[in-house]
Structure formats: C-alpha cells, structure tokens
C-alpha cells in the first residue's frame, strides 16, 4: 500500500505567532493521502490554511506537529523530489526562459550539456520551444507560468506542487493552461497537488479534492471527482457529473455537510 503513496500527510498542525505575540492555529490535525499519478486539489475559503499546508509539503514551512512523507521519505525541508510552481511563476527576470528552467537543475551537479538538454526537453514539453531565449518580460503571463511549470518538471520530481498556479491569468488563458496541465499530466504521469480557491477548477482538474475550512484550518471533506484521464475539459464541463460534484463541493467549502441536501439534517 505505502509503495503506492506519493504523499502522506499525517496529523499536521501548524501554530503561527502573530505580530502581537498571540498564537494562531493555522492548521489542526490535517491528514490526507495522495496516490501516485493522482491530481489532488486543496481548496477552501481564504484563511483556511491551504497555502500553508502546501508550503509545509514543499518544505518551506515546518509543521508544529505531525509529519509529511513524500515518496516514502519524511520531509524536513525543500527537496528535489518535489517540483514547485509558484503563483506568479516567480522567474528570475535576468534569465531567459531556458535559463530559468536550467536554474532548477543547477543544484544537482549535472554536466552542463546534460543540464541544457534536460531544460530544452522541459521547455518543449510546455510548448515554448520558440520562446526559449526570451526573457520573462517578453513573455505573456501564461507563457511565464509555463516556464514555471517547465522549471518544476525539469528536475523530474515525484510530485508537482502548485500554489494557485492559474489564478493570476485571464479567463481564456486559464482555460488553455488547465487543458495543458491535463495533457502534461497524461504524458508524464506526475503526481500533482495544487491549491485553488476556484471550485470549478478544482472539480475539473482534480481526481480528488481536499476541502479545508478555517478557524482553525482543518480538513472538512474529501471528494472524489475522477472523470477518467482521457476526458477532455469540454466534456467534463458539460457533464452532469460536473454539476453534481460542483454543487457538493460548494456545500463542503461553505462548511455544510453534504447530507443536508438529502434532508437528513438541517
């Protein structure tokens, strides 16, 4: 069973100290598991701790208690088994698209030619071959985010972690990127965890959605959405299953139990 697990989050709690020295509980006893090649969305209202949770998996924050295993190994800090895509791409402005992808590879002491080749393959994977030598300021928002994804994929991580990866993009670009993410997933078979506050996006892209509610941040429900890998976004969006899952997720996010709609409880 554990060989099948890409990420195992066990009873993670996180307490921050705010400016006035008071303790604020951001996460309480959060547990969930992600199987290999699954796409999992972390969603919830703002302040529910979804980004904090992702940062803990990234290794950029340490949990106050609880543990996170990635690929069977406990997380103590950032590691090359996790590829990270930031909300605003966060590319180095002085490097070309290709140079930015190479940056991720530089920590691993690869020969230069091999590094270049790996980066080129990743750039090609996200469809930016022609823009490889442009600097970020010469790229559109969508292209920049693709470079961000390429940079994360280039290190060949076990898990791709994405923090609201498409929230800064306009609606059309976002849809295009969502479709491309599914394509990349199909081609690479990577495990993906992404944070989103967008209900539709979570339902459309993820096989499984973990919803969190705030004060303190905790898991409120886990929803399996699995459309089947080869279903296109269009088909997904038009399906009755989408409307149903979307409705259920809304209920969850707003802190109500799903049973309510069945009239079991008020």
């Amino acid at each position: 069973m554990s060989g099948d697990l890409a990420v195992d989050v066990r009873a993670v709690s996180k307490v921050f100290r705010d400016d006035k020295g008071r303790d604020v509980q951001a996460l309480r006893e959060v547990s969930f598991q992600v199987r290999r090649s699954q796409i999992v969305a972390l969603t919830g209202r703002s302040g529910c701790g979804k980004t904090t949770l992702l940062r803990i998996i990234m290794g950029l924050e340490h949990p106050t208690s609880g543990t996170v295993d990635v690929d069977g190994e406990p997380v103590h800090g950032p590691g090359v088994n996790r590829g990270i895509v930031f909300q605003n791409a966060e590319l180095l402005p002085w490097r070309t698209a290709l140079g930015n992808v190479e940056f991720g590879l530089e920590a691993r002491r690869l020969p230069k030619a091999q590094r270049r080749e790996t980066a080129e393959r990743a750039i090609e994977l996200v469809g930016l071959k022609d823009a490889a030598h442009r600097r970020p300021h010469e790229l559109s928002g969508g292209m920049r985010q693709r470079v961000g994804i390429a940079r994360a994929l280039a290190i060949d991580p076990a898990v791709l972690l994405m923090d609201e990866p498409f929230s800064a993009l306009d609606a059309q670009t976002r849809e295009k990127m969502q479709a491309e993410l599914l394509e990349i997933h199909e081609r690479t078979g990577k495990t993906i965890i992404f944070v989103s506050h967008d209900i539709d996006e979570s339902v459309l892209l993820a096989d499984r959605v973990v919803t969190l509610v705030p004060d303190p941040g905790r898991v409120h429900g886990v929803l399996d959405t699995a459309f089947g890998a080869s279903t296109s976004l269009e088909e997904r969006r038009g399906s009755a299953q989408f409307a149903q899952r979307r409705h259920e997720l809304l209920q969850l996010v707003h802190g109500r139990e799903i049973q309510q709609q069945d009239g079991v409880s008020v």
Partner: protein
Amino acid sequence: MTALADQAAPVEDETTLSRKIRSQRRGGRDRLVTTAGVVVLLIIWEIAARQVDPILAAPPSAVFTALIGMVGDGSLPTAVWESAQPFLVGYVLAIVVGVPVGLLIGRFRLVEAAIGWLVIAGYAMPMIALTPVFMLWFGLGFAVKAAMVMTMTVFAISINTWNGVQNVPRTLIEVGTAFCTSQPRILSQIVIPSVIPSIMTGLRIGIGKAVVGIVIAEFFTAIGGVGGVIVDAGHSFQPDRMFAAVVVLMLAAVALTSLVGLIERWLAPWNRSIAGGAR
C-alpha cells in the same frame, strides 16, 4: 560655509533633472519643448544680464565667448583634467568600498547593527563640515580632493545598495530555497542581480554628490581644477569665466549621469521593462 551648502543643492537637483530629461527624450515633440525652454531661458538670461553691471553678471553670449577663449588658451582643458583625476579616483574608491559595505549591511543583521547607523549618519551629514580637518589630514593637493569625492559619494552608494538588498523579492529567494540552491549561489544568482538596479541608482546619485565633493575641495584649497577656475574668476570679477566653468561642471554632471544610465541599461536590460519604461 552657508554659501557653499547652498551651492550643493542645485547640483543635486541636476541628477533628478537629467533623469527627467532622459525620460522626456521619448518623443520628438517633447524634445522640441525642451529645446524651446532652454532657448527662452537663455534669452531671458541674456536680456537680464545686459541690464546689470558686467562685474556682477555675464550674458550667455559673453559666457560662450569666454568658454571658447578658455578652451583656446588651454586653461579649461587643463582645469578639467586636474579635476577629473581626483574625481575618478575618489568615485571608484567610493564604489569599491560602498557596494560591498551596502551588500553586507543588507544581508547580515549583525553588520547592520554594527555600522548601519554610521552609513545613515554619513549620508545625512553635510560632509563639507569635515573639509578643514580633511585639509589637515590630506594636505592641499590631489589627496584631499579624492578623499572629499570619496566621502561625499560612498554613503549614497552604500545606502542605495543596502536598500536594494532589503528589497530583493522574498519569493525569489524562496525559489532558490525551494530548488535546493546553496547560500552562495542564492547570493550570486538571485540577490546580486536583483540589487544591480539599486546599485546603479546609487552610482547615479553618487555622480551628483561627487561633483559637489570635487568643487568643495577645490574651493577650499583654491588650487587648480574647475573649482579653482571658479574661485579665481569670482575673485577677479570675471563672471563670464566663472559661468563658463559652471556650465562645464553642469554638462559634465549630466553627461556622466547619462553614462551611468547607459551602463545600467546594458547591465540590467530587464529592469526598465519591468518599471514600465520600455518605450
């Protein structure tokens, strides 16, 4: 002393002015307006200066004639050369000291606590006040001029570098951390490139400060250089020669500032586009 301090102000404004001029260069119409402004100012100056005693002021035409004459007899080129050498030495020293100090203060809390106050004090204090003691330490020649330029400039460069380090986007450093980049590589690949624009701002402001520094030193020592020419001309009631020297200083400051701007664009071409100055 007060008169000298007043002299310092317009020279500093020159830096912002030249920056403004640079951005105005964008359109042909803007350039035309600027030219018209200069012409109108020259005409007003010409008319006004003709009304007063020639001992007190010189019209642009006379200044221009004096300028030609001073270039012709070699006195001006000599003076410029005399000023340029200590200027360059002092300015380069200020960079060599100022940039690393700024980087260290910005990167390490301990260094900030130890010498941050000194840099702030040095930046805020009028360095002119130190001129007499500088003359005791460095004499009346080359050394005191270079030292004056250096002390006038180094704090501006340090403070801007320091500021730049503090403004390195935290998320970019996080990118380095997330991809397991070593600390030295984070410094060389993320922090320093991010700080280059701030360093260049420091260098640009530094030019204005350095010009003030060299003029002050030459005023006090009254030995050679463009500052020396100004003092001599003032003492011998030759406002045309004096203004000619002032115009040369002004042009030099503007030219050097634009040169630093060019270097900045070459070093950090991404910065202008981010700042929205691409066109």
